[in-house]
């Protein structure tokens, strides 16, 4: 990987193979530095068939590199997971992988863009990559829906954890100084939150990031992470559309910003393949329920 490399991490499981593809293709389409793009794919239970679909990115845009981190097969990841002795209902493998980016990615990666897989990028990603964090550890967009997440029901539940006016970023788009991320020891801090009796109130890794990096967050322009994106937002030329609400652009029914564009970014072939995949999965799930069978264990 060259010094000019741009590192982007995605974490997803087999159920998100096509949105992960769309996120990558949106970046590839809009970037002027395609040869510098490195996608770090931290995935779980990704079928060989779907993994092969992702290769279309490198075929269509030569120079782009995809790096795989199959979490279920990763001994290092398994050992870290094993060391995490307590249970937390929100600690799935995807969340854990994000907390330990610094341990999973090569040490040469010192800066990282993390993206959720329900985002579509419209602006050259290098502009985000080159943002000066001004000494802060993590860049993110202030989450307009933060208060309910931060403070809980009636804004009382978590009043001992967050304050109303505390800067709080959405975790779906992050620009990370990975050396600072490593030093912050997010796993250790998570264990400490458990000892303090706070863990069960926390909202996935987003709360942990906001707590650990309080005072070290760099607020990005809102256009780098437009959450709950609606058609009315289109005229404002957002840079990254984050389909964070219930309405997803891969559904047949629209109502989101750039609904039609999304299908063409995912490509029609993969859009409809993903639709058939979801339908088949739903039918299988229904069949299992009807026949009282347990979920099929992934191979």
């Amino acid at each position, binding site marked *: 990987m060259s010094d000019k490399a741009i590192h982007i991490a995605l974490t997803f499981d087999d159920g998100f193979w096509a949105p992960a593809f769309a996120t990558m293709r949106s970046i590839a*389409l*809009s970037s*002027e530095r395609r040869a510098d793009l490195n996608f770090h794919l931290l995935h779980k239970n990704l079928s060989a068939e779907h993994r092969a679909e992702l290769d279309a990115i490198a075929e269509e845009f030569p120079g782009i590199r995809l790096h795989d981190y199959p979490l279920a097969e990763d001994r290092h990841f398994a050992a870290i997971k094993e060391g995490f002795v307590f249970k937390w209902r929100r600690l799935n493998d995807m969340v854990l992988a994000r907390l330990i980016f610094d341990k999973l990615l090569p040490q040469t990666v010192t800066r990282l863009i993390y993206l959720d897989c329900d985002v579509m990028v*419209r602006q*050259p990603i290098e502009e985000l990559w080159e943002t000066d964090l001004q000494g802060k550890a993590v860049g993110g967009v202030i989450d307009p829906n933060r208060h309910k997440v931060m403070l809980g029901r009636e804004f009382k539940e978590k009043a001992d954890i967050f304050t109303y006016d505390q800067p709080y970023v959405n975790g779906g788009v992050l620009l990370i100084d990975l050396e600072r991320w490593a030093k912050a020891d997010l796993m250790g801090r998570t264990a400490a939150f458990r000892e303090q009796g706070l863990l069960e109130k926390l909202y996935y890794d987003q709360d942990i990031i906001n707590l650990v990096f309080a005072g070290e967050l760099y607020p990005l322009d809102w256009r780098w992470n437009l959450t709950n994106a*609606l*058609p*009315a937002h*289109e*005229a*404002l*030329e957002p840079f990254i559309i984050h389909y964070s609400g219930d309405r997803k652009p891969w559904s047949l029914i629209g109502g989101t910003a750039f609904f*039609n*564009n999304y299908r*063409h*970014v995912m*490509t*029609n*072939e993969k859009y409809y393949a993903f639709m058939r995949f979801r339908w088949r999965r739903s039918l299988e799930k229904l069949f299992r329920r009807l026949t009282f069978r347990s979920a099929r264990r992934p191979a």
Partner: protein
Amino acid sequence: MPVHVALTFDDNFWAPAYAVMRSACLAGRKPADFVFHLFHRGLGAEHRQVLGDITKEFGARLIDYNLTENERFTAFLAGLAFHKKLTNMVYARLLLDELLPADIERVIYLDCDIFVRGPLEILAELDLQGRPIAAVLDAGRHKQMLGRDFRQNLDLFSYNFAYFNAGMLVIDREKFGAADLPGETRRMHESGLLARIQYDQAVLNLVFADKWLPLDFRWNLICPWPAHEALEPLLLHYTGHRKPWNLVSGVAFSNAYRHTMTNAVFYKFWRERMKRRLLAPFKTLLGR
């Protein structure tokens, strides 16, 4: 100082054209200085009389250009294939330099599905910084430029190509004329390129690539939703199928639009469309 505004429309669009002019006059600082250049293929006498009310109410001038009688326009169209979307009225936009009186240096072109809320004098007096036109980036550009799966026309456009919406153009007459749009259009037609690009605004975008001045999105807000009202858009452009002259539209400022068009014109236009729609099956049956 006169403010020149050009509209191209046919008789079916007489009422929206009236609304464009009335909204421009209402929002203008000195509407008596406005000169509307109306390019059409002949208008019904009754419709033209309603348009004339603009002069009575605001003192603005209306100048008609009936293009069915225009030899230059007819000659330009001769042999030129018609795209379903590229009607001959669209070609009038490309020919503005040849059709307008020689003494006009600056003109504002407006589509007729527009509602003006800001003073057009600002655009008329705008410093174009040596550019031939000023316009607004089109938020829906990617699909228009690159087509299915964003893989078409990659030899013409790229994802980051700055592609404007051509529904509102601030035009420097001299530089616009120097671009030789009629000649470029003909050359695109002869090379087969014209058939590959879906919309007429692609012609303008190809000719003026990297040469236009981008304006704030509020000067041409496309697909206006009610949520946009608080952003105080200066010019709304009702692209898409939701139109403010429908009884139910769900667009921004739909109520203000009706009062700008005036209720008498709004309902007369509605009755005409209903009548046309009801008569259409009979006309088809009678083969007329």
